[in-house]
């Protein structure tokens, strides 16, 4: 009798561990933060992409209800995928899109904008990548949606796809 319980408990234990590992394998092993901490966007001073003059975010983040700060580079492939969505956002919604050109060559960036259209109201240079770290970015591309108070209300890590595009639409129409 005792022996039987012993066997059962071993079988139950093995099934239990099997399911734990089975679901553990399904989990993403790349960490992305869940909480969109509502914090204020830092007021950085960067050089303008076209004029090369020093520009602060406080000067740019005016005149719209929502802002989208997008970190991009011409060498980044996912940026090419997300670019049409940015163009659509610009066309359809009242949102001011600000680009941060991350560690890019000027000529390549210009070519990229020529080829894929330019949805950005302002583009700023981040030649050494420090500004992106100060903002709290995880990689390229990455987008931050800010409200009028310059608070980050949504952070999109990775390219904007159809699903995320609809999420942004919903958020702004609210």
């Amino acid at each position, binding site marked *: 009798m005792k022996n039987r319980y012993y066997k059962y408990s071993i079988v139950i234990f093995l099934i239990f561990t099997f399911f734990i590992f089975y679901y553990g394998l399904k989990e993403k092993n*790349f*960490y992305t*933060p869940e909480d969109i901490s509502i*914090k204020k966007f830092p007021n950085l001073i960067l050089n303008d992409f076209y004029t090369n003059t020093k520009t602060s975010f406080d000067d740019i983040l005016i005149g719209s209800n929502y802002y989208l700060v997008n970190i991009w580079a011409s060498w980044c492939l996912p940026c090419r995928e997300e670019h049409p969505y940015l163009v659509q956002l610009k066309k359809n919604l009242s949102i001011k899109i600000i680009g941060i050109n*991350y*560690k890019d060559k000027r000529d390549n960036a210009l070519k990229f904008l020529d080829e894929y259209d330019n949805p950005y109201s302002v583009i700023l240079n981040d030649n*050494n*990548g*420090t500004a*992106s*770290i*100060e*903002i*709290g*970015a*995880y*990689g*390229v591309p990455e987008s931050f949606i800010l409200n009028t108070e310059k608070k980050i209300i949504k952070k999109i890590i990775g390219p904007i796809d159809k699903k995320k595009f609809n999420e942004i639409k919903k958020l702004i129409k609210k």
Partner: protein
Amino acid sequence: MKTKIVIYIIFIFFAFSKYSFSNDLKLENKINKNLRCLICQGQSIYDSQSDFAESMKLVVKQKIESGMSEEEIYSFFKIQYGEWILYDPQFNTKNFALWLLPILLFLVGGIIILIKFGVLKKRL
């Protein structure tokens, strides 16, 4: 004599500037080793050469040069990326079990061993 004095002064100047430089570098490396790379998440930024790790190293260097302390730099990264960014997380309410469990298991294991060998019984 004069040239000797000048040489000494130059020597001392260089010696001290070198000293302060290496101290900054040591701190920089220490901080870099304790920060997680954002792209290759099993590595510290000290080991990584990804674009974002290089940028993070630069930020650490700038912050040290601007006079921020080690703690201040950690708290800056913690605000931006969360506790996860540190390889040596601080003791808090969320992770106290992780810190205390090994000690607890060690004590319980020790007590079990002592009971098994009858050490405790004899004493009692």
